[in-house]
């Protein structure tokens, strides 16, 4: 259990700035999930925390102590590598026990901890195998196990579930949550998976281009994204963005018009980008957004239709099987005024309004 603080952290590889001024406070026992597009510097950030890289500027604090110059083993962090980094010459058991053996943990405790981790990760039958003889998912579980047995005060997970099948992923998610609840350690967790991010995180941090975009409770970020990037990054399918101008009680653009809540009346005449989540936009014969169906995703009890409009493709939800829909048909979509968000057309920042 330890809190982790990043203060103005910069990191560049050569002339290539990768982490550009990140300030982030992670409370003790928090489950912080980091998300962001590929290459935005998430792994680099974890490596800075682990001590495998040194930051060019700023400070890394763990438990209130500046750790910039501390070696990895002085930081008491556990890391699950994106590449697993299992020791190829050791069996699964030896991989799990390695860190404990280095610490000269008594045999009984060592065995207990290894067996516990193996049980939790369903590795009992694989304990005598070598990494070469495991599937990708099994290796990933060993990598997690290797971090778990040590009970570090901070866990660093770099996409630990990316290679698991859907069912196992759901189960592992549960295990991780239980683990977190039990150990109460601070967990910093990188993922690409929306569901993981939303379900595991006590707080969520969104990164883009080496900068922290927004941090907060997952649902807050979902409901009130700070900018267009965060709005588009969270949620699946991604938010619809329609470029237009605020008019009287509505925002309208080329071939669309959406009602706005009265809160936005002050913005009349302003150039904006309207954002509506597909889940909030219902396909209907009428509706303020008009277009031709381009593609249909039928999920059974509901589905999404992709409408080609003059301002780009817009995704709208429909109920039921959507048997009546056909590609090429003209349809409309509508939503409640409350679910329309506005972003500044130039800065792409969310336009905050008083409730």
């Amino acid at each position: 259990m330890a809190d982790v603080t990043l203060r103005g952290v910069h990191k560049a590889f050569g002339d290539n700035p990768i982490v550009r001024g990140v300030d982030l406070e992670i409370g003790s026992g928090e489950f912080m999930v980091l998300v962001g597009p590929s290459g935005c510097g998430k792994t680099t950030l974890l490596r800075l925390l682990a001590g495998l890289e040194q930051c060019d500027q700023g400070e890394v604090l763990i438990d209130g102590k500046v750790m910039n110059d501390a070696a990895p083993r002085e930081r008491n962090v556990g890391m699950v590598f994106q590449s697993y980094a299992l020791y190829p010459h050791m069996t699964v058991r030896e991989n799990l026990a390695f860190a404990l053996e280095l610490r000269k943990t008594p045999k009984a405790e060592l065995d207990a901890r290894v067996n516990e981790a193996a049980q939790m990760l369903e590795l009992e039958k694989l304990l005598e195998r070598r990494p070469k003889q495991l599937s990708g998912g099994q290796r990933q579980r060993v990598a997690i196990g290797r971090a778990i047995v040590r009970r570090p005060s901070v866990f660093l997970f770099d996409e630990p579930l990316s290679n698991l099948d859907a069912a196992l992923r759901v189960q592992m998610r549960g295990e991780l949550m239980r683990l977190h609840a039990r150990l109460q350690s601070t967990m910093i967790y990188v993922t690409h998976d929306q569901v993981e991010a939303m379900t595991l995180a006590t707080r969520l941090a969104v990164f883009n281009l080496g900068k922290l975009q927004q941090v907060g409770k997952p649902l807050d970020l979902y409901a009130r994204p700070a900018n267009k990037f965060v709005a588009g990054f969270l949620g699946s399918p991604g938010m619809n963005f329609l470029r237009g101008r605020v008019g009287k009680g509505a925002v309208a653009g080329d071939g669309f018009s959406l009602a706005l809540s009265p809160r936005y009346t002050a913005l009349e005449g302003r150039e904006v980008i309207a954002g509506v989540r597909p889940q909030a936009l219902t396909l209907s014969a009428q509706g303020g957004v008009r277009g031709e169906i381009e593609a249909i995703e039928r999920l059974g009890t509901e589905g999404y239709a992709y409408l080609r409009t003059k301002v780009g493709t817009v995704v709208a939800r429909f109920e039921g099987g959507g048997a009546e829909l056909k590609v090429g048909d003209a349809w409309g979509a509508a939503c409640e005024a409350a679910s329309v968000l506005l972003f500044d057309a130039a800065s792409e920042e969310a336009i905050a309004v008083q409730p």
Partner: protein
Amino acid sequence: MTRVGGVAAVKRAIAIVTLACALFASGVRAEAPPEKTRILVWHAYRAAEETALLMLIDQFNAAHPEYRAEALALPYDVYPSKLSAAIPTGHGPDVFIFAQERVSAWARDGLLSPMDADAAMMPGEFPEAALDALRSKGALWGLPLSLKSVALYVNKSLVPVAPVNTDEMVALAQKLTDPAQGRFGLAWEAGDFYHHASWLSGFGGKLFKEPEHRPVVDTPEGVAALTFVRDLMRKKHVMPEEPSAQLVATLFNANRAAMVINGPWFAGEIHGVDYEVVSLPIVSATGLPARPLLTVEAALVSATSEVKDGARALARFLVSKDASILRAKIGRQVVATRSAYDDPGVGGDTLLRAFRKQAESAVPMDNTPAMLTVWEPYKRALTAVLSGLLEPDEALAQAQRRLNAIAKPMPPPASPWPLLLLAAGGILALSIWIRRRPVRPDAPALYHDVRRAIAYCTPAAASILVLVFIPFAIGVGLAFFHHGEGRYTFVGLSNFVDILTSRDYRITEPMSFWFTLAVTLAWTVANVVLHVSIGLFLALLLRDPLLKFKGVYRVLLIVPWAVPNYITALVWKGMFHRQFGAISALLATLGLEPVSWFTRFSTSFAANVVTNTWLGFPFMMVVSLGALQSIPQDLYEAAEVDGASKWAQFRHITLPLLRPALLPAVILGSVWTFNMFNIIYLVSGGEPGGATDILVSEAYRWAFQRNEQFGFAAAYSTLIFLFLLGWSALTRRVAREPSPEAA
């Protein structure tokens, strides 16, 4: 399709072979009827001597239209074995030129034609010593061409009047010696018996006890001669220590050795020194002249020659006055023919005349195989005494024991049948075992294209058979024979028994098999440990990401490996020289005493190990470097996060992951080192007293320096083979243990 292709290929191959045979046969036939009778002459001459010979052969051909003499030059070291193989089958030369050292053996084996009548046609032309050298069992077997012996070279600017006796020589030498300046009054290859023999005779000693013609070296005269030389070097210090041929030449050319004992060949190595050659002085203690060993190069006629008359005519022509004058003038030979010196060009040549004069008083070197056994024991005695290790009487007594062991009587012949039956039984059992092994269920599928498989494998199998298995089988077979006097006798296991029971030596003595085996093991372990640890250490350094100019270091560190190892060995040997070596110079700058490296086992062994380590670490470094680079970096990061220190990372990550690459290298390296003949032979030469010899160098000595005991040497080699076979079986098991594979 494949079937047809295979058959076609076989047919084509047969056609090619047939064609080749036809061409070969026609070539042989075309050569068949020469209008002139050919006389084939074998020799090992090079440069001016060869030119002179070729000119003489042309002259002979011009004068004798019925003959066509042809010369064939052979490398000196293979010459005797080729002769022994070729002459009995009638494929050898008609005339051949060789020194007298093997005349007895060849005469005994019926390779030579007697030449008494031919010599009688030129009475008074040859010194009696030269004719003696070519006699065996009362007959003369060759005509002497040239004479070789050592004599005294004096630097005229330092020695205006050459000494007549040893008292004068020693007094003069003492006056001209200044060890601080590296100046010496005297120098010769004192560690070599060829040079030392002059003093032995000067003190009245003889090498052989008659009538049994047995080499006896521990005589009072031998001790006196050795004491005389030892005192020159170690008490009066008028001679350099560990004098090699090269050192002698260097000192003489630098005016730092006033008097040098050497042969006529030395004249070619002298540059810019005004010198004179005189006969060796009289030994003052006995009043006898120091008489050098005389080597006689002779024209010999093959017993199986079909043109014996022509061959003898050619031999007589080569030793005739005119031909000798030409050989003297062009080939710079000290010709044996007396009348040649009537020619002013030859008689006026002071060098030739001086050596001719010395030859008159020289002792002909014995021409029986017994002589060949003397060199090594005597050399060991010389080095032991000259390095201060032993007193002359002790050293010669030891040499005598060696000689007795080498000249041991032939073991009783045994019947080959039990062994042959055993071997046949073994082969039978092996083939039954192979037959009865379960056939793999997928075998038919695997081997369906048998013909093609056989066609592909045949060339490789045939060359392995010819190049490896047949020589190997002959080698192993030889181990059951005794070789002596040119004959092989089957003696069963007695060679092995003698070796393994250490019959002639206590096992704590250098010449016993077990002592040598222990030294070989120590040698192998010491080397492999050093090679691996230094190689690995350097590889780890070279992997450091912060290190600059890595490529440069890598190349520099591989250089020792790229230099041929005998060159490295000779360079190190020079560096270990007590008086002139770089290592002594280094020790001197540190204020330390120079070390006489090859007089004690520990330092001599260390010198060998240092040299071989220099040669061996680059291989281990390259192997380690390659293996290190294949270890993924993230393993170290994971280990670091897991809390592993640098040392723990090395122990738990680097070492286990290096194992699969390093283990085969270690096995290979241990086998190489086990048989590293060059270093042992060239650096320590087995000194002191054969203690640093390893099994292969012992095997070599038994074959080539100890009375041609080929059977004994083959038994040694077979034991080496069995030992290494066991070793590789053992290590293969270790290597098979679950080894890590890269993820």
